[in-house]
């Protein structure tokens, strides 16, 4: 077995994990599986691409690589802008679609269907604006550094891993240690009672969209940096995201991250065994196994 698969799996897994944390949060608060979450990932990646592109056009200085990394300051600035813009996009979609459906007291399944419609619309909009041709944040090639044990990684890859780790710890602390985190857990358990206790559910919903979309944007930018930026990138990640969110247990942030890593590592090792063309099937197999053996997930409580 190739030890490099471990590194590849961790990197893919950290991106899946970030996306799955967003899925699990929106799922537990808004109470439906959001099929448009993959599109937030893709939009995040393109927002960063657009902002970084503008910055690069303004001054070549923004493109000069920072330290050992392949990208210049245009990308980190683009990332911050993308997090904000993707959050804004999620709020707009909520205001136009999901929020209205909630106030009409639509059933879960209508919400799921609407998210399916929103996903196709958002994805095709990206294709319309940017075409389906792959794009890249940087043309620079990076040499993978040997880390020992036959494992190599580029500085970009190590940075994405670190960013993912920091974000997950931060989100976990936010949920467990702060007032807004308590409010989110309360709304997730019982929105009506949360209102009675004085929590403004609408505010919590907004915070959850911002968090989920922000994490999605970071995941998208990581994927864009390490692989490429494509309108379909969110769709390709959607099944792994759902598999990870369910495997981790809906509502559990550490669960989603851990499960993301499990899915990523399984993909990486399976690719060694059965070939890269079957990568997308791994998430489906994991999903079926979880639903068969432990539908509440690793950290979930049975319903």
């Amino acid at each position, binding site marked *: 077995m190739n030890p490099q698969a471990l590194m590849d799996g961790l990197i893919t897994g950290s991106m899946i994990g970030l996306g799955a944390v967003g899925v699990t949060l929106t799922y537990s608060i808004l109470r439906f599986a959001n099929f448009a979450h993959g599109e937030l990932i893709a939009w995040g990646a393109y927002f960063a691409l657009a902002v970084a592109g503008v910055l690069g056009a303004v001054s070549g200085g923004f493109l000069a690589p920072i330290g050992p990394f392949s990208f210049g300051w245009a990308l980190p600035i683009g990332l911050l802008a993308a997090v904000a813009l993707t959050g804004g996009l999620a709020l707009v979609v909520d205001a136009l679609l999901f929020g209205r459906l909630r106030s009409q007291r639509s059933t879960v399944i209508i919400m799921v269907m*609407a998210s399916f419609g929103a996903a196709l619309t958002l994805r095709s909009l990206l294709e319309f604006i940017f075409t389906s041709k792959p794009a890249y944040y940087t043309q620079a090639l990076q040499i993978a550094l040997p880390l020992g044990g036959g494992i190599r990684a580029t500085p970009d890859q190590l940075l994405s891993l670190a960013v993912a780790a920091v974000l997950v710890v931060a989100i976990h602390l936010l949920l467990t240690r702060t007032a807004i985190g308590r409010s989110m857990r309360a709304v997730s358990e019982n929105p009506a009672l949360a209102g009675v206790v004085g929590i403004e559910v609408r505010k919590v919903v907004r915070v959850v969209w911002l968090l989920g979309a922000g994490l999605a944007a970071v995941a998208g930018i990581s994927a864009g940096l390490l692989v490429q930026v494509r309108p379909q990138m969110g769709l390709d990640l959607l099944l792994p995201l759902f598999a990870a969110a369910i495997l981790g247990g809906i509502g559990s942030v550490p669960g989603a991250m851990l499960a993301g890593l499990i899915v990523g590592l399984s993909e990486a090792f399976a690719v060694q065994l059965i070939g890269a063309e079957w990568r997308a099937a791994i998430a489906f197999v994991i999903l079926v196994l979880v639903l068969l053996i432990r539908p509440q997930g690793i950290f979930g409580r049975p319903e």
Partner: protein
Amino acid sequence: MSVELVAYAAFFLTMALTYAIMCLGLNVQWGQTGLFNVGVAGFVAIGAYVSALLTTPDTPERFGGFGMPIAVGWLGAALAAGLVSFLIGALTIRLRADYLAIATFGVAVAVQLVALNLEPVTGGPFGIGFIPRPFADLAGNPLAFSLANLALLAAVVVALYLALERLVRSPWGRVLRAIREDEAAARALGKNATKFRLQAFAIGGGIMGLAGAAQAHFIGFIAPDNYVPMLTFQVWAMLIVGGSGNNRGAILGAVLVWGIWAGSAGAFAALFPPGEQARAAALQIVMIGVALCAILLLRPRGILGEERVVSRHLGRLSQLRRAGPQPTDKETSRAGNP
């Protein structure tokens, strides 16, 4: 000229009717039973590939075909898609409603992958060609050929429609509606409710498989590209436009949306220069997506609406009466939703 026009109209209608079959299948799952299938394309693909394998002549470079009659292919298609639906349903139907959606989405992804990569069976990215077409001996006369195919598909749709209408009005169909409309009824039925829903899901999936087979034989070749999420989306749009729970609406919606789709494709294509045709196609999907969301917001029961809406309203009233001054937990949480 008029002969060509009639031939084209027949072609258009025949295609629309293959979608109408998919819509009828989806209507059994969603309209009658409230089960959400996000993998319609996958079940249609299963039917198309199974029938193609069964009916094409033996081909040395891939597994099969078996050169069987078309009717056997169609039957096999329905059975195979029905079986996969049954298995996925058995896995998820007891769980949260959206787990079924996620699992069916997974089926579509997996089927797409198999179609693309299992080359010795599916022909890989190039798919399977030379699928026998019904009335092939009429091929010399395009008009007669188109009309014969249209007649065949129309007969299939009418037969399905009549069968499904009977089913809807049978005790089985009434139980399904009761389960969909009334959580308490569903709970009272317990295990049986799961059984009924599973049956409906498998029947719906089987009908989608049949639709896939019918379409494959009508066009004569299949490839993985035909079974992308876009197809699922189109079928959904058709059912939603026609009105879920309404079989006539499902057929009408299919013809209508297919007409709009085919018509607007030309219009969008004309708006963009030849080099930008991919953009035109993307924009077309955006428009349809916005339209679907708008219908969900404004007329969630479809444009034609559902038959016997009255029973639904009465159901809600009686639920309220029962709940009276101590509404159920469900209502408590509903009231507090943002």
